[in-house]
């Protein structure tokens, strides 16, 4: 589904590469977790795959399509749940979703029904006509997710979709994502919640300094490390315990 070949990114003025000669294949219907400390290159990789930044070198394709040749089709194929709340605070939930849905050519009754269906599923049907500025963090995260899946994307990029939300909201989000995956959506997910990733992802890659250090099924990775009880132990064993404060 996603083929990445020798993909690199070096930001202007940066000393090193944020992503360095990265090779990766992600299969259809996978939930692939990109795990790594701050500044490891997770968001940079997702940003390249979702057309937000230009790679320095290398290439990738999604479902056989590239941005250089099939930009429009590819944008219609993917969905992105960004790390920040990418919503208009002064508009209501319904107005935000109507607008973002219309950018995917959704319109009329079909769009309206889809919005109400997803609001219902994610427990927000009573808040459709409330402004986003009045929402809690968990509610905004759920609207952020809905805005990215209205058009039923084949590939969904999730950049820390549950960061800063309450347990209930996190549970609703993860459960819905599992349903989407079951329905055929391939997902690329980044998170610092390693327990969540261990449970949620079919495969993970631990990435540091722009390179993949190891990858595999969470259970296999845990069993391959002596004394590792969970993915967090594996993660610390690979990336070390030194702080990774990043400016």
């Amino acid at each position, binding site marked *: 589904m996603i083929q990445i070949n020798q993909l690199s990114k070096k930001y202007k003025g940066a000393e090193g590469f944020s992503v360095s000669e990265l090779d990766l294949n992600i299969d259809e219907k996978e939930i692939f977790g990109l795990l790594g400390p701050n500044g490891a290159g997770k968001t940079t990789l997702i940003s*390249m795959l*979702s*057309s*937000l*930044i*230009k*790679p320095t070198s290398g290439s990738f394709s999604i479902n056989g399509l590239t*941005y*250089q040749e099939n*930009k*429009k089709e590819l*944008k*219609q194929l*993917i969905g*992105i749940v*960004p790390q*920040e*709340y*990418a*919503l*208009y*605070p*002064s*508009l209501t939930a319904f*107005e935000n979703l*109507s*607008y*973002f849905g*219309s*950018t*995917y*050519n959704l*319109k009329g009754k079909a769009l309206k029904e889809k919005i109400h269906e997803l609001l219902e599923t994610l427990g927000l049907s009573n808040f459709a006509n409330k*402004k986003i500025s009045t929402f809690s963090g968990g509610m905004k995260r759920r609207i952020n997710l809905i*805005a*990215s899946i209205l058009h039923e994307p084949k590939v969904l990029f999730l950049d820390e979709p549950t960061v800063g939300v309450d347990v209930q909201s996190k549970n609703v989000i993860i459960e819905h994502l599992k349903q989407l995956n079951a329905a055929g959506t391939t997902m690329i997910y980044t998170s610092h919640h390693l327990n969540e990733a261990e449970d949620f992802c079919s495969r993970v890659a631990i990435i540091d300094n722009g390179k993949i250090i190891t990858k595999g099924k969470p259970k296999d990775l845990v069993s391959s490390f002596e004394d590792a009880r969970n993915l967090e132990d594996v993660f610390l064993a690979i990336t070390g315990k030194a702080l990774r404060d990043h400016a």
Partner: protein
Amino acid sequence: MHKLWASTYKEFLLLTRDLGGLAVLFLMPLLLVITITIIQDGTFKTLKETKIPVLWVDQDQGDIAKTIYQGLTESNTLELIEETSETEAASLVNKGDFQLAIVIPENLSKDLAKKVNENVTGMLAKFGLEEDSIAPPKTILSPKEVRLYFDPATQYTFKSSIKNGIDQMIAKVETQSIYKAFQEQVTDDPSEIIFDTESFITFKEIGPEDSEKAVIPNSTQHNIPAWALFAIFFIILPLSINMVKEKNQGTFVRLRTNPISYATVLGGKTLVYLCVSLLQFGLMLLIGVYLFPNIGLPKLDVAGKVPMLFVVAFFAGLAAIGLGLLLGTIAKSQEQSAPFGATFIVILAALGGVWVPVFAMPSFMQTLSKLSPMNWGLEAFYDVFLRNVGLSELLPEISLLFLFFVATAAIAIVYNERKNAV
């Protein structure tokens, strides 16, 4: 088309949800036009109705001082306050208590009369009209100067008009003295009028020749187009701030990953902000027509000109929006867009002739002013308001405004594409 409509509707919602911002968007330009028109109209009225207090130091105590005093008093522009000491008068002016002190020098009347009499007698002697036909020897008189003390903060235009006024008055007094001297020499009967001392040459202001109902330009006819244009261009600020906000909120990031073109996003903004510009302009016309006469300002005459005025406002609005789109695309923060936008509008307005007429600018600035879209807009408005031209005469100016919009919007799109190319 569906995406353009959705973008337009979204922009409409964003604008109407910020009621404070919307009020500022409409009320501030109106306040600006009202304030400027009252001030500028007041400048004319000040000269007609309000008297400026001026210190009067009469060291002459003669006829000329009396004539100048009378002339200045009758002009109804100055209130003369008598002061005996020139030093004290100069000190009061220097402190800013008075704008001006006029000092009439000692023996001005006496010496001028003597000088004129000697000149006239000498001239008549040359013609052989005097009994002895020999001109009497001339007395050596020191030149006289009327001293004007101005407050250092006094504006050049005021100084200039006062100097010109007094100069004219003195010239008239001198001329009348010469006539009087001739009269006295030629006839012994003072009731016999030999010379007609009334001005022979007068001025008449002629308006546009093709209009029988030619509008005599007043402060409203000048101010509404100039400041309406200024207000139209101020749309740059909210528009660029709206775009920078989208970047900061993250919504622009989402739009970049969605299958919607940047041109469509800008199209939505253009349509909404163009409507705002036209509404702003319409409101300005309405206050000029209906409010101004009720607050003592001249009424704005728009008879038969409304469609043409809106044509100009439409293209001026487009030019302003193009600039706003470009600024919003390039700026990374409100701290960049707001001060730059505000200052740039003021520069464009200054270059465009909103404050100082282009013809009064240095030649280099006159050339530069031709590059300001505000100059094109202002000329187009003046063409409609004051010169009564038709659409064909407006074409050069509105074409330039349209091309400016196309160019700035295209640069914004290309810049965005290049910056975000993948």
